[in-house]
């Protein structure tokens, strides 16, 4: 139908190796970006921005991080929540130690700390694989969570043990703290996610991405090609934890706006992000977004959306019903397509190419 690459000839390798070689994909992405940057901030209400979109973007970032590790490099991690926590506390420390630093820089820079911690806990990955590695990363989860509670230095010795987000602005616009408008917070988050997704796509389609996938698919052969397994795995841990750290910092500073951070970065969070990656599609950046939308936004939309269209739901019933619905949908999608929503999208694209013929 309209989705055909027929007639789009590439006359040089640069065009052929572009991130989106098909014209329709580029147009589609352009429309999505237009909606995200122009339509949503202008026409969306505060609820849509701060309860649906900002959490979605934060989780997308975290899911991209875990997808780099689990989907592209084949290393399962249950420590994502903790790595996000490292980012959040690092951002708190950095921004309170250097109050004049641009907050956006603080958020991105806190990813570096998270990356370093990720490398440390990634060291066992050379020796252990699969489920055993997952268990080893649990150590990171529990140890780091212990640190968040027991080391008062991390939260500047304040009594509540919470992260306090002070008011900061970029170019005169307040973006963090109680006075920041949802629009400004959303735009900051959106810019962050757009740039970091672009960088991830670049890295993953080049030499380093191929090394990651080679390690995932056949580590023995990868070593034989001269790919250093330890270096590649640690780089994957660093790269992935960087994204998780930035997501954690953004979660505390842009979305939640501070508070008792320890609970936000527990094992449930790690599992939630792992589910996003699995349901969205392992080894696909699009999958990270789809998974984040499915797991984080769907419950919110159901909970608040159903009453809005006239289906009355109240309090606990809404809570329970959304659990049941989301659980059922997860089962449904896993049965229909075990490789995730991203694969479903790919099959759909293939069908469009062939349309109206079945094959």
């Amino acid at each position, binding site marked *: 139908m309209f989705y055909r690459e027929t007639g789009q000839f590439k006359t040089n390798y640069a065009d052929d190796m572009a991130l989106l070689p098909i014209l329709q994909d580029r147009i589609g992405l352009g429309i999505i970006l237009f909606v995200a940057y122009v339509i949503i901030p202008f026409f969306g209400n505060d609820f849509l921005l701060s309860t649906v979109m900002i959490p979605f973007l934060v989780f997308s970032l975290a899911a991209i991080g875990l997808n780099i590790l689990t989907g592209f490099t084949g290393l399962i991690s249950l420590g994502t929540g903790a790595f996000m926590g490292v980012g959040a506390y690092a951002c708190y420390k950095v921004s309170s130690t250097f109050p004049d630093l641009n907050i956006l820089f603080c958020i991105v820079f806190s990813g570096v700390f998270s990356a370093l911690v990720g490398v440390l806990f990634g060291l066992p990955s050379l020796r252990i694989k699969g489920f055993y590695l997952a268990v080893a990363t649990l150590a990171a989860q529990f140890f780091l969570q212990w640190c968040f509670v027991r080391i008062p230095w991390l939260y500047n010795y304040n009594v509540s043990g919470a992260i306090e987000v002070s008011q900061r602005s970029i170019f005169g616009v307040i973006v963090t703290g109680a006075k920041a408008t949802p629009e400004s917070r959303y735009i900051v988050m959106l810019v962050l996610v757009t740039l970091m997704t672009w960088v991830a796509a670049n890295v993953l389609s080049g030499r380093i991405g191929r090394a990651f996938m080679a390690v995932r698919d056949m580590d023995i052969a990868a070593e034989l090609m001269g*790919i250093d397994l330890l270096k590649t795995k640690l780089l994957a841990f660093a790269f992935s934890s960087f994204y998780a750290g930035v997501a954690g910092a953004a979660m505390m500073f842009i979305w939640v706006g501070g508070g008792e951070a320890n609970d936000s970065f527990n094992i449930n969070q790690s599992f939630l992000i792992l589910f996003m990656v699995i349901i969205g599609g392992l080894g696909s950046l699009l999958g990270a977004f789809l998974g984040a939308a499915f797991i984080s936004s769907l419950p919110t939309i159901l909970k608040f959306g159903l009453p809005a269209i006239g289906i009355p739901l109240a309090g606990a019933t809404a809570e329970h019903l959304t659990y049941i619905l989301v659980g059922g949908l997860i089962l449904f999608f896993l049965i229909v397509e075990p490789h995730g929503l991203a694969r479903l999208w790919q099959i759909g694209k293939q069908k469009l190419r062939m349309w109206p013929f079945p094959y």
Partner: protein
Amino acid sequence: MMQTYHQIARGDTLLAVDHVSLSFGGVKAITDVSFDIRKGEIRAIIGPNGAGKTSMLNVINGFYHPQKGQITFKGLTRSRMRPSVAASQGIARTFQNVALFKGMSTLDNIMAGRTLKMHRNFFWQCLRHGPAMDEEIKHREFVEDIIDFLEIQAIRKVPVGKLPYGLQKRVELGRALAMEPDLLLLDEPMAGMNLEEKEDMSRFIVDVNQQYGTTIALIEHDMGVVMDLSDRVVVLEYGHKLADGTPDDVKANEDVIKAYLGVAH
């Protein structure tokens, strides 16, 4: 024609295996085996199942560390080494049971073979413009030559997991060639192929040897192929070296006939 080429190419020793012994606990895989591979030749390693052929390849490219003996490659003697070091010295190999990166396309698989030759750092990789893209394109051109050579243009962007076995073997050869190896180790390149595929593969092996001047060591069970392709053959049995010489010598060797055909008692 081929013979004359090889008489010219035959020259210095590229790799020498010197009194190598390898055992796993009580199991002796290789016992005191010595042979050499000369520059530009096709060297076959044959023997019945469990003779230690694959173990021998694994020793050569550093997967196994022999308990005794040493290996000299390009004049450098070593007894222990890591596979990634062997790769950077110019040894590439294919596997008996295809070891491709199944989730990646044919192109990406062969591009992965160029990893050692790509050096742009993380910063440029993040941007994927300028030097990183130039490098990518330069290597893409090399990879496209290999794709042309192996006649796999049509499956360039197909994930290799979906390809039939014969093509997978061909892609694996391509991936090894992308490393521009000095020594190419082929572990049963024709196992499980039909006659036509075997003919194709034989042609590719001879072409690689002649066009790129690559030295090849191959393990193969199809005696017709071995005798036709190789310049010299080494025969292993139960980890011992049984015979070593030109195909004709080996064919006439009593011990080899015994090992392969058995003998009336």
